[in-house]
């Protein structure tokens, strides 16, 4: 808690909440690469999910026998559990560069690789079977999800799907401390300090608002209720022209670090007053493959002196006053957008929660560390708040599970494009946005309900 001094004698105390980081499973510091391939992580994923699904299908269709893919008999109805594979003809293949026929397939990627002829295949360690029928729509599913299917093998050798069963939302722990007062968490992503589209004044306004340097007593009172700030990725943007693998000239070296230095100054202003988490994103100076490791603390010589400053992994999981948060900087949802379709980002997020996997397309089309003993993206405990950063627009709703779970889904828009930050009330999980604009003649901040 920090006292903020203002002109009068009265000090406004910032509210406090207990913070606990749950990022241990995303840490790869202790992992050793021994030449393993991705079959290991798929094996761990299939087995964990299959054990879970076997226990659940008893309640779903108790009288239908369960068998493996190899044990399928023609015409006999049964349930099979396996990993989905979606065969997509437009999916870019590294071998296309070397193909002898100069076909019309462009090497430049379109935004979405779906095609009407895409089909799904179910695979387990005994074999794979092509899925037919109209129940399972390939546009909804992606490679890497584990599901249970009820159906039968046809004469053609396909598996005709009659019904599909997903694991559904994981069990949720009740938050122990039901806070009776309003406490706010601020989410920002895509600040992109150093990019040509970002407005430094907008970010400074945000920092000033959070630290209570803006507005009158009432405004400061609102700011004092902010207990935590999360930067969900893409906080800097280093000029791409400098990152071409060539040695940097000395004048360019300072340009590379400029953006991070500015970010550090602003972060230290925030960290001085409130606990702040910073997650790496796709453009940040962190490793490429998920789970992205925390941004190195030597990038933040100013901020790291504060114990309120936390450099976190992506994905990031933490608990605040017993409320569990889980979120990413957007790569998982962006990859789903390329290989499947949904109404909006929130629907993609809902699917990942129902499949109990943060990033089902990893490692197929999303870079991922080759874990051997576990799949860290499996969601074992349903969060209360699930956020995704660097999206095109703001969106939020409550998702309800079959066992009374309630999740607040938040799609955080890119700050550099929209000037929007998202604020969540810990008491009732309600969300609103904070919009920052900088007009040449007037400076104003206003809250949008």
């Amino acid at each position, binding site marked *: 808690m920090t006292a903020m001094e203002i002109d009068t004698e009265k000090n406004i105390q910032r509210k406090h909440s207990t913070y606990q980081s749950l990022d241990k499973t995303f840490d790869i510091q202790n992992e050793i690469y021994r030449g393993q391939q991705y079959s*290991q992580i798929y094996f761990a994923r299939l087995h964990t999910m299959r054990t879970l699904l076997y226990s659940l299908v008893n309640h779903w269709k108790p009288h239908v026998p369960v068998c493996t893919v190899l044990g399928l008999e023609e015409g006999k109805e049964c349930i099979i559990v396996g990993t989905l594979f979606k065969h997509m003809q437009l999916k870019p293949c590294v071998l296309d560069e070397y193909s002898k026929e100069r076909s019309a397939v462009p090497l430049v990627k379109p935004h979405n690789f779906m095609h009407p002829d895409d089909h799904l295949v179910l695979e387990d360690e005994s074999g794979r079977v092509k899925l037919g029928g109209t129940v399972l729509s390939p546009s909804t599913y992606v490679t890497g999800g584990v599901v249970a299917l009820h159906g039968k093998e046809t004469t053609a050798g396909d598996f005709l799907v009659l019904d599909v069963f997903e694991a559904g939302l994981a069990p949720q722990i009740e938050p122990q401390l039901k806070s009776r007062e309003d406490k706010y968490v601020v989410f920002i992503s895509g600040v992109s300090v150093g990019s040509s589209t970002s407005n430094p004044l907008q970010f400074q306004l945000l920092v000033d608002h959070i630290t209570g340097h803006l507005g009158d007593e009432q405004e400061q009172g609102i700011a004092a209720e902010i207990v935590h700030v999360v930067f969900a990725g893409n906080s800097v943007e280093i000029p791409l022209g400098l990152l071409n693998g060539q040695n940097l000239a000395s004048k360019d070296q300072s340009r590379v670090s400029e953006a991070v230095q500015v970010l550090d100054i602003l972060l230290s202003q925030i960290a001085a007053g409130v606990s702040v988490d910073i997650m790496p994103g796709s453009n940040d100076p962190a490793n490429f493959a998920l789970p992205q490791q925390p941004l190195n603390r030597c990038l933040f010589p100013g901020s790291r002196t504060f114990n309120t400053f936390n450099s976190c992994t992506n994905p990031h999981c933490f608990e605040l006053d017993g409320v569990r948060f889980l979120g990413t900087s957007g790569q998982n949802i962006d990859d789903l957008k390329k290989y499947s379709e949904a109404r909006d980002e929130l629907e993609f997020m809902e699917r990942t929660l129902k499949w109990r996997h943060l990033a089902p397309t990893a490692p197929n089309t999303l870079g991922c560390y080759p874990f*051997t003993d576990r799949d860290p993206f499996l969601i074992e405990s349903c969060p209360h708040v699930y956020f995704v950063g660097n999206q095109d627009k703001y969106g939020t709703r409550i998702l309800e599970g079959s066992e009374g779970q309630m999740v607040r889904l938040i799609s955080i828009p890119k700050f550099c494009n929209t000037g929007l930050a998202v604020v969540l009330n810990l008491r009732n999980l309600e969300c609103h946005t904070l919009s920052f604009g900088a007009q040449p003649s007037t400076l104003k901040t206003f809250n949008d309900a």
Partner: protein
Amino acid sequence: MATASSNIKGFYRQKKKESGIRKPTSTKSDKSSLLHAATLGSDFTPPSARVPHGSPDLKDDYDKNEDVLRQFDMNSAYGPCLGMSRLARWERAQRLGLNPPKEIEGLLKGKEVRSECLWDGCI
């Protein structure tokens, strides 16, 4: 480990192993039960697959323990073996509820056996 043997069998450095086709049998004696447990659920493993080519196999005659461990490596029920130490793979199988035989853990923790799978260093 070539055992010093004074009989005629010791004279020959290489011995032809029994056929690699092992069908799980219902009767269990102490050594075959170990192998049975290790091969449970696996498919045919040809004898040549159990001897890695490429690295100089200084021990032409590998011992019973190594044979049991190789059967464990080749058993697909416990997942891929490449890229993990045998003990890590056993522990993963344990954690995933696959009930790997306890004797394998005993071998890996106690005796002097190879900690890496049979393909390690060859692929």
